[in-house]
């Protein structure tokens, strides 16, 4: 039998032990970061590495224009020390929510520091798909590193070093993309996909980009658009068109059938990752892997080597 005060002593010992474990776990706690897209999450992971616990709201194959919140997303947003999002209306309805959260938390649009003259304008809006131009993504990387350093100043040097290393990788990647695209004869450098996500890619690497749908995946397209596309394909001798991971392939497939019915050669050159990255093990689950996959698919397709 224990005397009551002995029991109390043990209890308080247990409590203090519990408190200590909790205390140390907070001391070691990483910065909690929530990113909207997988691409931004990947960027933050490269710069923050083990100093941050990074969560993405939009999973594999999720189209940001059509994103629907799940139960778990509430906690991802409320627990985050920093929230990174793309901006330029990529996240649509989330934008006003981010404006509200910004009253209490650090909420950063990674596209914020890109000068307006480098953005593609559509009427009053800007094309949000900045990650297709690797040099623009470098600007996003700088913004992320700067925001992390401000929030967590004791690791500022660490973030700066990681940023420099990652910027170097992106510079190499950018040069590689340019050399790959240079292998395609100039008149064949036409990229036809389901929606206009690849504007920056075309602008940066010298391809003409045509899409079936408008800038937002929610819009529809007319018969006139399809006819125009068909004419271009036939007259320029284009070998391949492409489907996207986050957009239904049925429009592109019907375009291919239409051209084939006229006795011309056209294939689906492969699947490009546009608004979301690939699944684990697809080799496209990182930004670097995603760009490499897209560029190789485009090169092979346009050179007529799609199914080798």
């Amino acid at each position: 039998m224990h005397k009551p005060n002995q029991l109390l002593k043990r209890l308080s010992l247990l409590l203090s032990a519990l408190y200590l474990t909790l205390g140390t776990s907070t001391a070691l706690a990483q910065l909690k970061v929530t990113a909207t897209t997988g691409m931004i999450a990947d960027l933050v992971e490269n710069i923050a590495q083990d100093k941050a616990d990074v969560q993405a709201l939009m999973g594999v194959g999720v189209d940001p224009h059509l994103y629907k919140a799940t139960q778990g997303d509430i906690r991802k947003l409320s627990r985050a020390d920093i929230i990174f999002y793309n901006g330029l209306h990529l996240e649509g309805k989330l934008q006003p929510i981010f404006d509200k959260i910004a009253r209490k938390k650090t909420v950063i649009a990674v596209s914020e520091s890109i000068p307006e003259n480098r953005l593609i304008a559509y009427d009053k809006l800007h094309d949000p798909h900045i990650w297709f131009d690797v040099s623009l993504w470098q600007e996003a990387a700088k913004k992320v590193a700067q925001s992390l350093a401000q929030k967590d100043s004791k690791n500022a040097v660490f973030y700066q070093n990681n940023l420099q290393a990652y910027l170097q990788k992106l510079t190499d990647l950018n040069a590689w993309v340019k050399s790959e695209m240079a292998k395609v004869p100039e008149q064949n450098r036409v990229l036809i996909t389901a929606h206009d996500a690849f504007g920056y890619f075309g602008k940066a690497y010298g391809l003409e980009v045509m899409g079936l749908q408008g800038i937002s995946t929610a819009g529809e397209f007319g018969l006139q658009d399809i006819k125009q596309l068909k004419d271009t394909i036939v007259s320029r001798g284009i070998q391949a068109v492409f489907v996207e991971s986050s957009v239904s392939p049925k429009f592109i497939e019907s375009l291919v059938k239409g051209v084939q019915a006229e006795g011309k050669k056209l294939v689906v050159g492969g699947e490009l990752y546009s608004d979301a990255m690939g699944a684990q093990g697809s080799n496209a689950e990182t930004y670097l892997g995603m760009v490499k996959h897209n560029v190789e698919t485009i090169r092979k397709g346009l050179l007529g080597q799609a199914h080798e």
Partner: protein
Amino acid sequence: MSSFDLADWLLDIWILATASLVAASCAMVGVFLILRRQALMGDAISHSVLLGIVLAYLISGSNSLWVMLLGAVTIGLITAWLSESLHKVSRLQSDASIGIVFTLLFSIGVILVSLYTGQIDLDQECVLYGEIAFVPFDTIIWGDMETGTDIGPRAFWLILIVFLIVLISITLGFERLKTVTFHPSLALSLGISIPFWHYFLMTLVSMTTVASFDAVGAILVVALLIIPAASAYLLAKSLKSMLWLAVLYSQLSVWIGYALSYWLNSSIAASIAVSAGLLMIVTLLIMQIRKVQQKRHYLQQLNTEQA
């Protein structure tokens, strides 16, 4: 660590409180819609609000929430009024009249959007429909932005006001609403104005649906207007019990749905709507089983008597 848990707990409370109030308000007005065979009025208003939003924007030049809400409530009333008038004048069924009116108003809205507003994002999905998951983040700060106190989500306060208006209106007008709904000819002879109570009810419907759209989005509102009231209709013996049962069903749907969304990590609105549907099916099944049992019991009695 503990501060995070506290915040989590608060998030759940705000979402559940908002959803519960939306569900209770929708269930109460839903009862009258079901009884008057106008169950799809909520769906109709969810479409025709587009015209209200566009007109409000064109007239005022602003897309602030209050202007949008006013436009939406007004067009909701017009939808209800036109449907009822068409039903009376043309002798078309009320569902057909509702269908004609809301598609017409919605299409006018679509044309106005393409004519006048061009590229600005002006549709109900963007400016009016909310997402229940984000309710806790859109809070009102009382006083100064920096030093003021956070008094909780805007959507919660808005729907609380609407809930109180609905509750008080139905409590005070209960006898008259009952007479008008079940015995229109008696109401006439008693000198109760049928048009007045009709528009009174439609004002409640329009206000409730629009405030609920703002809090939780369209599909959940349409579901909560119809399903709890329909489940209650299966069991209830009086208007009063139907109202109580509808509110009970709506609250069960919210709680079961929230747990479901937690378990599956899915959309909260969709989970609540699914739970409402499941509760309805369970109710139907239990009633069928009981019916069969009663029949068997009756037959057994008959057999023993014959023997």
